[in-house]
């Protein structure tokens, strides 16, 4: 099964850096599970109201739990497994080149590199 990831790692615990803290987590935990086990329930703020967000659907559907992992913005904390030495930050990266899947023809800007990730660079207001 070459494509089934191996859950085991050499480390017995992973050290994960978040918000100036170093957390320990069992290998194989998701980033979200590792944070929640430490009592951390939110790790980003929304781009309009600035409200705190954390885990909601828990299964990769809602994109509420976005977090920057080792410099990669907008990773779903519920789907990414912790690794030793991982650095987690509230994701803000205005120069990201990602667009969402454009929805059925109503957003001409979605394909030209605007950022639609819900926070940070926020292009939503620029949509005509």
């Amino acid at each position, binding site marked *: *099964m*070459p*494509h*089934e*990831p191996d*859950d085991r790692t050499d480390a017995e615990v992973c050290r994960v850096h978040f918000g100036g803290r170093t957390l320990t987590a069992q*290998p*194989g*935990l998701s980033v*979200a*599970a590792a944070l*929640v086990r430490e009592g951390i*329930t*939110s790790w980003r703020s*929304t781009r309009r*109201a600035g*409200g*705190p*967000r*954390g*885990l*909601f*659907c*828990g*299964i*990769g*559907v*809602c*994109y*509420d739990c*976005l977090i920057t*992992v*080792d410099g*990669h913005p*907008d*990773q*779903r904390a*519920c*789907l*990414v*497994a912790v690794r030793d030495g991982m650095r987690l930050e509230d994701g803000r990266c205005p120069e990201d*080149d*990602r*667009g*969402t*899947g*454009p*929805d*059925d*023809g*109503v*957003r001409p800007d*979605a*394909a030209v*590199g605007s950022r*639609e*990730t*819900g926070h940070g660079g926020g292009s*939503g207001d620029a*949509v005509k």
Partner: protein
Amino acid sequence: MRSSDVLTADVAVVGAGPAGLAAAGEAAAAGLDVVVVDAGARPGGQYWRHGPGAEGPAPGTHGRGTFSTLRAGLGRHGVRLVCGHQVWQAGRHDDGFVLRLRPVHDFPHDDAVERVSARRLIVCTGGYDRQLPVPGWDLPGVMAAGGAQALLKEYGTVPGQRVVVAGTGPFLVAVAAGLAEAGARVVAVCEANAPVRGWLRRPLAALGEPAKAVEAVRYAAALARHRVPYRTRTAVTRVHGDDSVRAVDLTALDHDGRPREATRTTVPADLVALGWGFTPSLDLLLTLGAATRLDGDGSLVVRVDDGQRTTVPGLYAAGETTGIAGATQAVREGLLSGLAVTADLGRAGRTGDGVDAGPSRSRRAARLRSGVRRGRRFAEALHAACPVPAGWTAWLAGDTVVCRCEEVPFAAVCHAVRELGAEDPRTVKMLARPGMGMCQGRVCGFATALITRHLTGHPSTAEALSAFGKRPLAAPVTLAELAASDDRTAPRTAPWS
């Protein structure tokens, strides 16, 4: 591109839950070359979700033995399993299908698969919790009921200490029982409908699904053991808190499902698990043009024949995408789709490899079809017993967030309908932006359709829901990935044209 980046198979199966594992095993046992793709780290889907290092779902999990049998069958028949990948686009190609994949995260991935080509495609993408907005539901500590259960099943983590589980349907009981057994204090299970005590007893068995009755009795016993109050005709009508959940309002509902203000009580809590049934994940099926219908629970589902064939030649669907009906039904449909794809590709089918040797293929298919009909009746009865309360919009305030991604308040949806003249959910989406964010309306699509119906008086139609639910790109991709994609398999209508 390395050769391992592109996989070719007779049959591609999307989703490694109950339906997908059954479909893949059946097709592979007949000698077909099968690839299964799943976003999870391990096979099992939501129902058989289990933790790193575990062989399978926890002891006591319903159908655990079925999982083990199916899982072992995949290995024995050489099914290739691609975990940790999402399909972001599905297209027709010559006589078959091409799936474009990406890992579920953006880190370098040694075993990344970019493409799967297959002559036949079986979509078993399951579903996720359906949600109704409520004031304060965007606070951390409010979760989908399935999300709270997933965290528990996979990581043994309970994301709160004082829990309220609310919404409708028997799934709430399963979630609450799990959380209580794991040590959380479940201060209330709020079921918006009344007849729940009914399904905790005979009617389940009477409907021909005795295993479901056993499961329900076990959950009910767990709730009783932990003294969890079970409140019918009651809903969470507001969530209080500043940076996270502090308390919830519980309010009894009248016969129209409207909150009876005089009954409102406020209960301290730090976790609220909400679920109003499930929404099937139809992205790939809609993109490929499969015909749909509205199911009894108001969900858009895909039409299939008695071999799980959709209206698109070569495309099959099994499990929740054909109507929310649970894991037992999903396994039956998965097996049926595997039998059908085997027949359609002209394979003789299994000749008996121990486990399923015996009945002929046609007898097996007939038995499965009869089971599917029974499962459908059971699901219809549950859907009828657990509707979304008609008057639910009465608990919305003007500033209640409807679309969590784009932070669209209820007032903006009202404005789009009343002032701007929107008459259907898609126009509401264009004018007020619910469903325009990262999740592409997966979370708010159902509620937006209900709110639009409530405001306009026009009933929801399959066409309206389909227009809201079309997602030509099923996952966010980078422009580089989009640019590198082959035009021939792009959606027929460019999404930004």
